[in-house]
């Protein structure tokens, strides 16, 4: 299954490459080119969907690093994103340049994430999930009541991001910024996963007793996973704050945490490609459902109101069907499709 027939490596370094063949690199290049052209041809509503996708990709890949790769379930990811959003927003409000503010947001989220990751020393699985749920609720309370920083229930107005005097003040400009940051986040997680830190994370997930024997400091690496994951989540939050230009406590509630968990489960736990697919799927699905109910309402105007109510139910149903028929996630399906075409037309 590793590589196609006739693919030989002459160095360990070549074998460790993420994209090993010219064909893969060409496909990636074409895909990126397609993405870069998108804002020029799509209308600004569709570009805004793409923008939300980019932010979701960063959030999903960061949660996948913690939950999928290191095996530490977190129900507080939405709140960690919120910490990044408020910290970055406050930083730019105080005149910090945008990029530095983004990193500050990430750093603040990392600190908070590591603090709430301390129980992972003793707690595993479902018990850790409850501990991180507590983090979510505590942080939600803080967002709502620390009014001098978060604006409380009134929310917080944020300016659009500025880089070296260039303002990203519309959807199209914003897309290129978000795409670049998302690409960086994907690269970071990919690199971590193919080096000793990523291997240590997986070893903790798969068999922590052997990981300890191999010399992995369990607590240190769990905290590192919480820190790195929350850092990227904070960056996603910072981008979100500057993109929507308004943040309030409700945005970062438990629903957000759960929808990110849904993304990585649907996409594929422990897979970078899966994170992207899950984020794209979960962002697109409501849009597709809205569009289809709208067009159905045009055809059957009498039952329009019922259709809208039905939309929420269909959303849940689609998720459930996905879990039943694709329990390994979209990434696994993608792998199977690639394997099929690799051998086509001789499947055996």
């Amino acid at each position, binding site marked *: *299954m*590793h590589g196609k027939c006739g693919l030989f490596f002459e*160095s*360990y*370094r070549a074998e*460790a490459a993420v994209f090993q063949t010219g064909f893969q690199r060409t496909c990636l290049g074409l895909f990126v080119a397609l993405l870069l052209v998108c804002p020029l041809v799509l209308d600004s509503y569709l570009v805004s969907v793409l923008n939300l996708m980019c932010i979701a990709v960063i959030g999903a890949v960061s949660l996948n690093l913690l939950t999928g790769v290191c095996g530490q379930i977190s129900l507080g990811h939405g709140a960690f994103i919120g910490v990044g959003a408020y910290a970055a927003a406050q930083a730019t409000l105080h005149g910090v340049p945008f990029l530095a503010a983004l990193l500050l947001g990430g750093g603040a989220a990392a600190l908070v994430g590591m603090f709430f990751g301390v129980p992972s020393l003793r707690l595993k699985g479902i018990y850790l999930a409850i501990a991180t749920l507590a983090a979510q609720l505590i942080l939600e309370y803080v967002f709502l009541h620390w009014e001098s920083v978060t604006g409380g229930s009134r929310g917080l107005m944020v300016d659009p991001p500025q880089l070296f005097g260039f303002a990203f003040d519309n959807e199209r400009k914003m897309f290129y910024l978000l795409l670049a940051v998302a690409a960086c986040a994907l690269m*970071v997680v990919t*690199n*971590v996963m*193919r*080096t*000793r*830190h*990523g*291997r*240590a994370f*997986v*070893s903790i*997930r*798969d*068999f922590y*007793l*052997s*990981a*300890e*024997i*191999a*010399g*992995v*400091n*369990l607590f240190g690496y769990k905290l*590192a996973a919480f820190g*790195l994951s929350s850092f990227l989540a904070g960056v996603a939050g910072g981008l979100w704050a500057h993109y929507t230009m308004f943040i309030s406590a409700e945005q970062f509630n438990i629903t957000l945490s759960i929808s990110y968990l849904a993304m990585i489960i649907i996409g594929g736990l*422990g897979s970078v490609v899966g994170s992207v697919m899950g984020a794209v799927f979960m962002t697109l699905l409501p849009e597709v459902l809205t569009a289809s109910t709208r067009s159905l309402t045009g055809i059957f105007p009498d039952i329009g109101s019922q259709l809208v109510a039905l939309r929420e139910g269909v959303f849940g149903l689609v998720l459930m069907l996905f879990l039943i028929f694709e329990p390994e996630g979209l990434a696994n399906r993608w792998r199977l499709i690639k394997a099929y075409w690799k051998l086509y037309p001789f499947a055996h």
Partner: protein
Amino acid sequence: MTQIKTMATKTTPLLEVKGVTLTFKGIAALTDVGFSVEKGRIVSLIGPNGAGKTSILNCISGRYTPDSGEIYLDGQDMLRLPAHKRTGLGLSRTFQNIALFKGLSVLDNLMVGRHHLIHYGLLSSILYHGRAVADEAAHRRRVEDVIDFLGLSPYRHQAAGHLPYGVQKRVELGRALAAEPKLILLDEPMAGMNLEETEDMARYILDICEEWGATVLLIEHDMGVVMDISDKIVVLDFGSVLAQGRPDEISANQDVIAAYLGTEDATFIGR
């Protein structure tokens, strides 16, 4: 007891276990266990089920902390160190039930085995630049030696969890060996294997000792193997040392025969 003294003078002990006592909520698992493992030897721990063999291994590797007693590896006090730091002193082990990282490839399992030898930082990891790239290739080269030795090359890139049982046992041995240990603790490496696989494993253990220069502390129930490959045998019963010595002494020891096989019919052990 005179036997131990003469052996100790012949070779320096790599591992010294002195007076280790371990209790779980008042129930004694180990009582005053003491033995030594000499450098370059294969030492076997035997005893009936529940005798405390795995418990003593867990005390050495750091899973359990004994109530009293001392454990030294190469003169270093092991009990002061947390489990993950003992690896750095040259200790590695396998588990009774397979304890592989199922989602990682065989190659990555072995690379995790070398975790304590790879030192580049998180930033190097994130950027995949500098030391990370060079170290990964260098350590990969060492891991390939282990892969060659254990005949794992057909499985190199397969996920460990999908491999046949016998191969998984070999991968686990490989992971322990990849750590370049001075002392390797093997907890029933032949459990559940057929005759052929058992013979292969026995050969690997002898080679690990002779060619790779590691000292072996082995728990095994297959008496034929234990008698054949051990330089020394330590017999545990009810959490304390019943006897220790060369295989021929142990197979002739009436206490051992009584404890291990019941009081009658002791011909089996000398097979």
